[in-house]
Every structure is written in C-alpha cells, then in structure tokens.
C-alpha cells in the first residue's frame, strides 16, 4: 500500500456558524480512507451529518460551515483549492448522484444536452461530439431507444429514467470517485433494484470508487463492501459490511439492526431504540448515544469515547466494545 489512497479524509471537523457568533459542532473526528474501486456505505439517520459530509468532500459546504482537517483526493488537498480548482476536480474526478432526480435536473434542457454539457465544458468536446457521447451514455444506463430519448425533457421521463440520466451525467467524465446521496430513496423497489444494478455495473466496469450514503441498511448490504455507521456527526462503527451487519460492535448499530421491521411470530412488539436522534445543540455529555443506549454505564457519560480499532479493518467508538471484545 505505497500509493496514495484515492480519497483520504483526516480528522475532519465541521461546525456551523450561529447567528449569535457561536459555533455549533456537527461532524467531529471524522476520518476515512478509500482506495480506487472501493465501495463504502455511510449509514445514518436524519440529523447524523451524513449529507454535510458528502458536501464537504464535494467542496460544496454552505458558507456558514467551518471545516478543519484535511480532505485529500489523489494526494491533492481539496480544502486548499480555490473555487476554480475545486470546480475542475468536481467535474472531472468526482461524480455525484442526488436523491431527487427531478430537482437535480434542468427542466428546460433536453437530457441529452445536460449530459453533453459537462463534456463540452470539461473535456472541450464539440457539442456535436458531446451529444453523440450522450447517446452512448444513455445506452449504458439502459435507456431504451437512447437516440430518441436524448431529445426528451426530464418531465417526459419516469422517476427511474430520470435517476438513470442523473447517473449518466455523473459518469460522463469517468470520475474516479462517485458519491451517491440516497440515490434510490424516491424510487419504487423494483425500479430501485434496476438502478442499483446499473450503478453497480458501471462502478465495477470503470473501476470507480463508490461512496453511497443511505439510511437503508438493505441498500448498503446490496451495494457496499464496507460500511461506516454515523450518529450525531460521529463515526460509531466501521468495517466490512457483512461483519458490521452480522456482528455489530456498537450498541447503536445493534439497535438499528434490531429495529428493522420484521414479523414477530410470538406477537411481541418490535424492538426499538428509545427516544429520538438528539439535535446537535442538545447532545448528551460523554458518548453522544449515551442517552438512548441500553448498555450505558457511568463511564460512558464521563467523556466521549475515542475511535479504536479492536480488530484489523474494524473500527468502533464505544468503551464497552473494547472491554467486551474477545482478543
């Protein structure tokens, strides 16, 4: 492992500037490494900071956000780049797929031209050549009759087709890293299955790394080799997906997995995590999950647990996990 990783996030903290001059910390002590071709799922409920995290990697943080730490893409520090430099990286090296394909697309431009636009701007192709490439891209995301559909407007397409157009735009520049933020949440399950398959195929074929952000553990199990669990802006657990989902080390991950709805033959109620995700302004003392955790002990409230690596390729933030880990 001598080559620089594709993406490396080091000690990232993000805080929001408040109107009264104060700062509200959101993301704390966040690090991750992604090699070329890796697939990483980031699981989090609403208010976990997962979308802010993807915006940080894209260099699209809102002006009120203050970030510290380092985000290195192919060895280049993205946080040190100016707007023009970041814009070039965004266009060529990072592709992004959003949740709502209707609002992410321009309603007044044909989908073919929207795909071609990036190629004209970043690859300096002629519009003629770019439109030709767009038809090819539509074919690769399995839109039937791509030459005719390239002339369609977003409103003439179904939600699943629009999301395929979103994927085509994101892969047009052959990015090294694809960030997909809840890409299939708005879609029906059968359409979701098709879109995930297209995304999976494209990432494998192009050797793209995928960072998939979702609240749906099932989608992550389907798509990602590694999983990172986020809660209140903190990494709670990370590891290979099968390991995290079958042998969770953090009580929050265990609680999430138990809360997945399933039929109870004994008629007993479903397991729940008591309470709700706390707002960032009202986080409990010590471990951020301590107010909802069934395994809480006094030491959990004494201070925030550090990130530890109890096994190779597994990380966890929980003092109990360290105590109970078999050697």
């Amino acid at each position: 492992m001598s080559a620089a990783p594709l993406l490396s996030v080091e000690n990232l903290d993000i805080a929001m500037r408040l109107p009264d001059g104060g700062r509200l910390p959101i993301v704390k002590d966040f690090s991750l490494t992604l090699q070329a071709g890796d697939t990483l799922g980031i699981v989090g409920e609403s208010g976990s900071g997962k979308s802010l995290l993807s915006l940080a990697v894209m260099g699209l943080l809102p002006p009120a956000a203050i970030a510290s730490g380092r985000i290195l893409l192919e060895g280049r520090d993205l946080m040190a780049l100016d707007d023009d430099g970041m814009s070039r990286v965004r266009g060529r090296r990072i592709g992004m797929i959003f949740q709502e394909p209707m609002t992410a697309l321009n309603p007044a431009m044909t989908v073919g031209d929207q795909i071609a636009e990036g190629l004209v701007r970043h690859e300096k192709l002629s519009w003629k050549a770019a439109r030709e490439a767009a038809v090819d891209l539509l074919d690769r995301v399995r839109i039937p009759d791509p030459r005719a559909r390239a002339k369609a407007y977003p409103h003439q397409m179904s939600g699943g087709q629009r999301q395929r157009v979103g994927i085509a735009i994101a892969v047009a520049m052959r990015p090294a890293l694809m960030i997909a933020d809840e890409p299939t949440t708005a879609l029906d399950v059968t359409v979701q299955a098709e879109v995930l398959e297209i995304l999976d195929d494209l990432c494998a074929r192009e050797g793209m790394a995928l960072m998939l952000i979702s609240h749906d553990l099932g989608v992550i199990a389907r798509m990602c080799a590694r999983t990172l669990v986020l809660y209140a802006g903190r990494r709670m657990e990370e590891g290979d997906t099968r390991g995290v989902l079958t042998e969770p080390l953090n009580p929050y991950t265990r609680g999430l997995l138990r809360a997945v709805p399933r039929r109870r033959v004994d008629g007993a109620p479903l397991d729940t995590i008591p309470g709700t995700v706390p707002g960032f302004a009202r986080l409990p003392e010590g471990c951020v999950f301590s107010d909802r955790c069934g395994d809480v002990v006094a030491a959990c409230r004494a201070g925030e647990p550090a990130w530890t690596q109890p096994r190779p390729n597994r990380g966890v933030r929980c003092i109990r996990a360290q105590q109970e880990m078999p050697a």
Partner: protein
Amino acid sequence: MKTPLIDIRRLTRDYAGGGLFARPSLTRALDDLTMTVEAGTIHGIVGESGCGKSTLARILMALDRPTSGDVILDGASLFDLSPKELMRKRRDFQMVFQDPFGSLDPRQRVARIVAEPLHVLDEKPSRAARRERVMAMLEAVGLNAAQAERYPHEFSGGQRQRIAIARALITEPKLVVADEAVSALDLSVQAQVLNLITRLKRERGVTFLFITHNLAVVDAVADQVGVMYRGRLVESGPARAVFERPLHPYTRVLADAEPSVTKFGRPPARPAPPAAALAAPLTHGPPGQGCAFLPRCPLAGPRCAAEAPVLRQVLPGRQTACHHAEQMLCAPA
C-alpha cells in the same frame, strides 16, 4: 358470517387526462377492485407508485367519488349519504398521512390540532371535556400533557406522526387509513410508531388500512394484506401466508426486489419474461384484454395475453389473479 367493516364492491375510478395540448386520454386508477376489511384488524395494501393505492385511500375517505362501484362502510353506502350525513359519518373514518411535516398546521398548538376533528361530532364536547379527551389521547400515543401547548416544529418526525395519529383517533373512529404513515421516519423511530399502531388495534379495537410500498413493514404489523398492480388487486390473504408463499408472480418480484440486511451483494439473476410472452400481446386478443403484469412476468404464457385473469380463491382465505397460481403453489419457495 360477520359483516366486514368495509365492503369495497367493484370499485373503478377513471381520471380524464390530456389537456390543452395533449390528446384527451383516460387513466384507469382503480379497475374493478373488490375487497373487504374486517373490524379490529390491520389490513395492509402494498404496491408501487401508480398502482392506485392512494386513489383507494381518497375514495375510502370520501374525498373522491368512484366512476363506478360502491364502498359500504359499517352497513351504509358511503356515496348514498347526503352531505350532512356524510359529515356526521366522518367521525368513523380518519386518515394519517405520509409527511409528518406537511400534515400539521405549523401555526396551531398541538392541543388544538388534535382537537380539530371533534367539530364533526353531533354533540360538541365542552371545553373541559375536550381538553380531557386531548390529554388522554396524547398520553395514549406516548406524548405528555406538557407537550400539548407546543407547536409542531418543536417535535421530531416520529413525535409528529404520533400527533397525527392522536388527531386521527380523537373521534374514536372505526377505521383509520394510514397512507405511507411510517415511510418518512428513521428506522429507530419507525418501529416505535409501528408498535403504537399494533397496540391501538389490540387495546382499542381500531381497524387500520395500512397503505405502503414497504413489504417488511406490512409483514411486521398486518393481519391481512392486499397486493395491487395497475389499479387491480392481484393477491390477497393473511399477511404471513402471502409473504411466506406468494401466489402471484408480482408479489414475488416485489419481495425479491426489496433490499434486506440479510442479502449481501448482487442478487442472483432473476428469470426474465419469456420472449414468446413478450411478443404475444401483438398476436392475441385486442389490447387491454390480457394480464396487465404480462410484460414483466416470468411465468407469462399465451393464455395470459388472451385473457385477463380474475381474482379467484386458490387456497382457503387466499385469492390471486393469476392463471399460473397453481404453478406458484408448487414452485420451491
């Protein structure tokens, strides 16, 4: 035999489409749908967008009228009632919506939001009685009296859905239609709301029509389930039996497509519809005659193109609209 709480008879709803620049067209949102819901049960309705499940909810709430067919609620036809009678009847059926942010008036306090449906009662309760009912209701859904004076924005999504459920139950309705009521909630609070719905059924005998696209959620709470496709009911039966052994290929397709924390990586390739079946609609019968699911069906055969399957009983309590139900019955699970 017990009379069902809701008796839906051959419900059809057409919407006129087209408009200024497009050719006029007719969309059939509900197609000859017949089903019953027993009192005191949770009846799940699953299907993808466009299957007509929300149209069904609107008609059951008397917010829309069917093109043909009838809904008998508790012995009386919903669409024969005079406006005044309908108003009085509204205390018996209430609704919980998907979006816990859009369905509560942001400028009203929780106590007032929850009390609002009480206006349809014949005898308006006194101020004190109203307050007492609101407090009891909030407690029943797991909120406390102190929260009654707050505004919706002070609550999380899960708490707002509890407020919406309290509002729906305040008139002690016989039926609550919940349209995607837990879809917008995070996993950790979704289970809390599902448990609440199960408890309200058990302790208060409330009947729920639980509409969702999420099979796992229906499997967790529903007694009965109906699967809809393109405005038709294609399968119905006890939820546990339907999910253990679907008798309609569409139910199987839905179940296979649903992601799960126990399915890792790429799913095994699914059988594609036979090419002969895909070509069939061009040669058999007039268009619209065949099975609506045919173009996506792995079992499709010539009969499916020629003749639309009707809902029929295959096992006791199990109905399906598929010519190949017996084949589904014999296939490995």
